[in-house]
């Protein structure tokens, strides 16, 4: 069995859980002996492409290249040159394209728009056009490959997946990691919603990362529940914390005996940074020996900094910006508690990472991960008093912290990508059986 997978870039070159999920799932599927052709958008001038071994770029067409990631056998990686990135809004996308053009101009001196345009002729300045262009290139690529199932991750890849499906007639599985309702609340972007909806309807199976998300898919996109399977995400224990990583407290303004409460994720409406800060304020009313660290970046970053100042807790909240690699491990080492007050979280891999690093967690009940974790503290994201109540308790009572650490770590260790992959492979088999048996 061979899978044509339309996914996203692997860690550490990612800005969120989608890349982590694609990596974990693909690796585990390949370890089960299923072959995968993994197609992803990637800009050719990307400077961070050291983790993949470039096999023979020149031998292939200009628009896609062929890489082999060393640690995963059975997986052939194909990248399509494209600036698409998950989590971008159409506005952010346009801004990014402008930046690329600006950068080119900076390096190459005065150039005309036409020159730049020639150089990046295949990039579209409009995200939806780029998504369609990506679909055309992916379909072209698919004709050169042999496979049994198409599996696509989140809306930007759905048009490509549908194009491939209509050309090849192979069964389509769409995986949903985050819906437009999770990202934008009730203010959905209609074209994105339409693409998601088309993808769900075109697919033979929809894989939701939680019952929480399955519910959104069935109720908001009118998809028959029988069609939607739940496959929870997992955690890759091999990426465990490096015990040699030492955090230097210098320059952070954090005293050694001070406790640290961590927010880690994109600072966007979806992740509830506002509730984190309001809870921090409440905590500080009764418990002083603590600092709140917000690790991540996002469109609400500046607003959050301002909010901290306005709440009068500016000196107690630290913003680190986007963290990757060892810095993430360092911040986990420092943290006494991780809080995820997400307004709407389809799954939420970060709490699993925190538990994996022995950091106890408070998660919002409005999250998929709360379906698979019991040894954590759960709150309604809007219940700031209760978040603060629980934060104070973890900081005050060592036996609570120890119990959450021990049981939580053990529980997280049972949530493996192998389980998720096994469920996906079962779904593939059912589809193939339905087609051929």
């Amino acid at each position, binding site marked *: 069995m061979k899978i044509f997978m339309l996914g996203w870039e692997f860690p550490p070159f990612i800005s969120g859980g989608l890349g982590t999920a694609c990596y974990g799932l693909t690796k585990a599927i390949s370890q089960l002996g299923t072959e995968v052709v993994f197609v992803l958008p990637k800009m050719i001038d990307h400077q961070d492409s050291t983790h993949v071994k470039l096999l023979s770029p020149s031998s292939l067409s200009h628009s896609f290249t062929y890489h082999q990631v060393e640690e995963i056998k059975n997986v052939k990686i194909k990248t399509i040159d494209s600036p698409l990135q998950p989590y971008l809004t159409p506005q952010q996308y346009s801004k990014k394209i402008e930046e690329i053009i600006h950068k080119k101009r900076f390096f190459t001196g005065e150039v005309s728009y036409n020159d730049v345009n020639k150089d990046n002729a295949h990039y579209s300045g409009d995200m939806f056009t780029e998504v369609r262009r990506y679909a055309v290139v992916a379909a072209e690529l698919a004709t050169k490959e042999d496979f049994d199932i198409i599996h696509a991750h989140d809306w930007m890849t759905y048009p490509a997946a549908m194009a491939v499906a209509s050309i090849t007639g192979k069964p389509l599985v769409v995986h949903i990691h985050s819906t437009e309702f999770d990202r934008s609340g009730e203010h959905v972007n209609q074209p994105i919603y339409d693409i998601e909806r088309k993808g769900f309807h075109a697919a033979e199976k929809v894989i939701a990362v939680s019952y929480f998300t399955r519910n959104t898919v069935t109720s908001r996109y009118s998809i028959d529940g029988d069609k939607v399977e739940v496959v929870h995400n997992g955690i890759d224990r091999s990426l465990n914390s490096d015990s040699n990583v030492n955090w230097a407290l210098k320059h952070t303004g954090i005293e050694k005996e001070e406790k640290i409460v961590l927010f880690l994720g994109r600072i966007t409406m979806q992740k509830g940074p506002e509730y984190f800060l309001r809870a921090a304020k409440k905590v500080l009313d009764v418990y002083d020996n603590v600092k709140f660290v917000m690790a991540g970046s996002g469109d609400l970053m500046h607003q959050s900094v301002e909010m901290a100042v306005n709440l009068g807790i500016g000196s107690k909240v630290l913003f680190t910006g986007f963290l990757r690699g060892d810095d993430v491990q360092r911040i986990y080492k420092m943290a006494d508690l991780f809080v995820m007050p997400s307004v709407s979280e389809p799954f939420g891999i970060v709490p699993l990472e925190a538990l994996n690093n022995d950091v106890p967690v408070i998660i919002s009940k409005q999250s998929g991960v709360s379906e698979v974790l019991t040894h954590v*503290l759960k709150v309604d994201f809007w219940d700031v008093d209760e978040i603060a*109540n629980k934060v104070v*308790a973890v900081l005050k009572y*060592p036996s609570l912290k120890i*119990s959450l650490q021990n049981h939580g770590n053990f529980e997280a260790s049972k949530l493996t990508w192998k389980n998720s992959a096994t469920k996906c492979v079962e779904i593939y088999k059912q589809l193939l059986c339905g087609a051929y048996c």
Partner: protein
Amino acid sequence: MASVCFYFQVHQPTRLRHYTVFDSQHDYFDDHKNAAICKKVANKCYLPANRLLLKLIKKYKGKFKISYSITGTLLEQFEQFAPEVLSTFHALAQTGCVEFLGETYYHSLSFLYSREEFLEQVKMHSDMMNSLFGLKPRVFRNTELIYNNDLAAFIESTDQFDAIISEGADRILGYRSPNFVYTPQGCNRLKLLLKNYSLSDDIAFRFSNQQWEQWPLTADKFVRWLNRVNGNGYVVNLFMDYETFGEHQWENTGIFDFLNHLPEYTLQHPDNDFKTPSEVIDAYDSVGTIDVPHLISWADTERDLTAWIGNPMQSSALHEIYRLEKKIKSSKDKKLISDWRKLQTSDHFYYMCTKYFDDGDVHKYFNPYDSPYDSYINYMNVLDNLKKRHKKLHENTACLA
């Protein structure tokens, strides 16, 4: 001769309300929830079961006998929320066929943490039984049948009881049968009655289990099993939670019909009878000593104490509450002392149990919390306020002095 000895445990804790670190009021208990549960269980279990048993006692004219152990925390709730239950217990007490056992008033684990507090609670409970029903308990049962040699020796030393009750756990009995009267290791006078867990659990746990090969369990089938004891034992101790009738096993499982017909089938055999625990120890001599150096209980399959003191949260909460004993008592503030004691009820610690939590199972019975962690946080917040209250009282008295 096979005597059937029933003992029903009747208990509800005084549940705490949601209490955060930001709360400062002294009303720790959830009157609304406690009232709702008390009334619900009264209607489903306590009232129908009491009425049925009263009817049976009258019908068999002194041949059908039972015993109860009722905690102070529940009796207070009956007075407040369901006084009609108290009057049916009163009626039962007057038949002369019902015995009331002694235990700690607050269904506490005090024996493990403070002998002084333990004695006071046992006395409070005895006094209450005496004043409510005019009966002074002769037989003692400790919370959750927690037991060891030390407890038996301590109970004997108080000179208030003639017998003690515990779990007939395999590991203390070995090849021996629970169907005899024993003497605890280290005791002279005190007798020991052990629960026949197999037959007790057939009623309490398995009765409605349709996967059980013996389902459905009828009274005549159960009595056939009882009759087998004739010749190999004196007494079958059927000890269980009273909530078995109508609450753990709902009325539609046929549990009340079962109970209704049990005396009839039991008394058909000429060698059978019903005895209260006191009558059992008066009628039968001890056949040997039972050595229980380690603590046992009637909980879970482990029959140990891990459901209450198995994790760091539970031990920290327990140590914290008993650490306050001297301070709280020296305040002589009745409300403060009573609140402190209500916080000793074992259920509060049971809710903090992380064992089986992921399986979400038996420990869920009327558990007001979503997780053991929530229960610990709530408890510690209340305890924190209790400490502040004491401190304030102490400062005020110091000022006055």
